[in-house]
């Protein structure tokens, strides 16, 4: 009895997978490449998968990557998704900085607060996208952005769940 209670649950080969520190960044890049899937759609209502996965990782773990990694990750997103160059670089880095500052303020968090934070970031991101499009001569009414904002906010828990599974796999935890 005592012996089995003291024995570690860990089995051989269940430690962190090799390259575990780079799994979060790699998953963001993989999500970014979803935008080059051959979907020809009339309306741009799909969420920005790269951004969703990025904030899901950052809300799950503060040490997923050093904050400045968001800049090169955003650069990849700009190139692959066809955003104006520099848009994701600044948006993603700003999101990391905002969350860093928020981490100093918040005493506790639960799922609802995380979802609310993600919703605010998504809203800010879509508003920035709308403003940049307006500056580039494509001023759509803001009401046209509402479906994509709602879809993105609704899609965040899915991204958070997948990121959670990925995190368990990368750290070799069971369950």
């Amino acid at each position, binding site marked *: 009895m005592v012996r089995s209670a003291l024995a570690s649950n860990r089995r051989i080969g269940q430690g962190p997978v090799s390259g575990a520190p780079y799994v979060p960044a790699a998953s963001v890049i993989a999500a970014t*490449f979803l*935008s*080059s*899937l*051959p*979907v*020809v*759609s*009339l*309306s*741009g*209502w*799909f*969420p*920005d*998968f790269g951004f969703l996965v990025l904030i899901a990782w950052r809300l799950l773990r*503060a*040490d997923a990557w*050093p*904050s*400045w990694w*968001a*800049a*090169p990750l*955003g650069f990849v997103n700009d*190139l*692959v*998704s*066809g*955003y*104006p*160059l*520099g*848009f*994701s*670089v*600044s*948006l*993603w*880095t*700003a999101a*990391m*900085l905002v969350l*860093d500052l928020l*981490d*100093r303020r918040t005493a506790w968090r639960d799922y609802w607060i995380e979802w609310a934070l993600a919703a605010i970031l998504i809203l800010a991101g879509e508003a920035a*996208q*709308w403003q*940049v*499009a307006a*500056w*580039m*001569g*494509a*001023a*759509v009414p803001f009401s*046209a*952005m509402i479906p*994509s904002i709602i879809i993105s906010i609704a899609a965040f828990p899915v991204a958070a769940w997948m990121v959670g599974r990925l995190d368990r796999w990368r750290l070799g935890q069971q369950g």
Partner: protein
Amino acid sequence: MATPRPGWSRRAQYGLFFGFIAAIAGLVIGLILLGISIAAPRTFKDLRSLALDVTAPLTIPLHEVTATFQGIASGAGDYWDAARQNSRLKAENKAMREQLIVARAVQRENRQLKAVLNLRERTAETVAVGRLVGSSYQSPRRFAVLSAGSGDGVRTGMPVRTAEGLVGRVIDAGTFSSRVLLVSDRASIVPARLLRTGQAIIAQGRGDGAVELKPIEVGRNPFRPGDIIITSGTGGLYPPMVPLARVLRLEGDNAIAMPLADPGESAIAIVQKPYEPEAMSSLSQSEPGPP
């Protein structure tokens, strides 16, 4: 930034601090890049073309797979009510044949009249044929990815059309694929004409798949639901007489129309030379087009 206080380790404290500085530097660089992208969209042309070529091996073969599955699905749907569809198509075919004869006669007469007037007839030259394999389905901008690039002779600014109608124009040309600004993008403005009355109008995209039609002359609303809009050829970029859109509903002095070429349905697209070659040179210099 993990925890506000990383403990007493100097190394950890410095690491945290420099990470913070690096993030701010990243933000500043991003904002500068964004400012350049907005002010001078053509600056990063080569970089964007390169990125198109990097993603092309992913997009183009996957499109074949999805096209096959879509084909199976719609093919099965066609079998479902084949008899009714068959009789409808026969009736349509008969009506079309009659119209075709009239159209041929009109075309011949038109050619003769043009010869009398000594008008130079320009034919829109086909540069390349490709497939619409992707789109910007995450953003309010409307772009599509075409599987033909500068290797096939595609250049920035060339108009793109399908058999059904005008799709848009090329804004980034990679070696194997290019990015097309669709007519439904907000930044796309196409000089057009109402087919029924010949009135000159302007078609601007709305960003949600539809286009907004504005009459150039102020007056009572000339549109009727179901009206066909064709390009007028004004400005010299788009060739004239290409079908553009069908009016859905009226809105004040304007009308909302759906483009006839649905980039999701019509897979094969043709890249043409600009109708007037001069339009291209002025376009590449002055136009502050999209990225």
